[in-house]
């Protein structure tokens, strides 16, 4: 996420439209990609991103600079996306349709890179889709966003040992699935 000055955040919290746009431009990449990997569906990720920024718009005036803005945004995004994914998994069992998702807002890639990148995305989506939302969020924050265990704990407001335990269970599950695929 690009750095955002405190002055910009304060101006945005006071209803300054240009400042809010600057906040959006700086943070939307982070929000969209975290949401995308947790809900594992582009259409839902767009909805989640919008909702997260509406929360940011409403709650920015209550942001007290006690944690970093980035941690605050991670927290809102991860929690909203986890709840969304839990709700969605209750409503319908999602199957990731890669061909459809590639058509809805996927970035335009260079032809020579496209195949390997699509394969990477497909592999990641399959792995993440096998995990329940709580574990998926920890894996996304660790392996895709590169957060430390303590940062994940702060973001999700959970104990660091819970982070460790969720990652361990997630990885054991992924190993089991790999063995099933190989067999």
């Amino acid at each position, binding site marked *: 996420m690009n750095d955002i000055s405190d002055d910009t955040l304060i101006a945005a919290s006071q209803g300054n439209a240009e400042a*809010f*746009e600057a906040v*959006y431009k700086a943070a*939307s*990449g982070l929000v*969209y*990609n975290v949401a*995308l*990997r947790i809900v594992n569906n*582009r259409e839902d990720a*767009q909805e989640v*991103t*919008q909702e997260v*920024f*509406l929360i940011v*718009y409403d709650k920015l005036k209550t942001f007290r600079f006690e944690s970093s803005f980035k941690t605050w945004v991670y927290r809102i995004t991860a929690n909203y996306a986890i709840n969304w994914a839990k709700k969605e998994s209750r409503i319908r069992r999602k199957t990731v349709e890669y061909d459809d998702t590639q058509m809805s*807002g*996927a*970035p335009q890639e260079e032809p020579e890179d496209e195949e390997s*990148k699509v394969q*990477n*995305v497909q*592999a*990641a989506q399959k*792995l*993440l889709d096998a995990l329940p939302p709580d574990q998926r969020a920890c*894996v996304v924050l*660790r*392996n*895709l966003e590169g957060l*430390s*265990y303590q940062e994940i704990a702060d973001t999700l407001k959970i104990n660091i040992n819970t982070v*460790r335990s969720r*990652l*361990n269970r997630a*990885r*054991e599950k*992924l*190993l089991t699935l*790999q063995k099933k695929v190989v067999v």
Partner: protein
Amino acid sequence: MNNCENLRELILTDYLDGEADDKARAAVDAHLLQCADCRSLLKEAQEGFVMPLETVAREAVPAEIWISLQDRISARTSWAERLREFFGHMAGEFSYVKLVPVLGMAAVMLLTGPVILQNSRTIQAKEKAQQEYLVGLLASSGNSSEAASDAAANPIEEYFL
């Protein structure tokens, strides 16, 4: 429990993620040198999910998100403005100064209403009790009037006396 089972969680979490302290890392390194199964576990983890997840490219944010977001914010803002305009208009029509006596009267009524109501109920209850007492006395004096004609004044007589 053998050493592999003891170290499995550590390998799949702190060691894999570079979170292990020096002592734990040295213990795992030493174990890996002599354990083919744990080396295989580590390789499976790195190739099976660490690398595929860490190399996945970040995606560009679709432009329609910002467009929809702006629409939703401006819709909210216009509602907020409408409400402000409405209350501003109301404030112009009925100045707060004019509302002060009305609000004051309402407050007094709210505060004193329950007390007045309670007093009136107490008075009614007392009157009713008195009437019942008198009716009771009259009834008892009617039944025993002849028998006690010579007796001393009964309670009703005492009451009127």
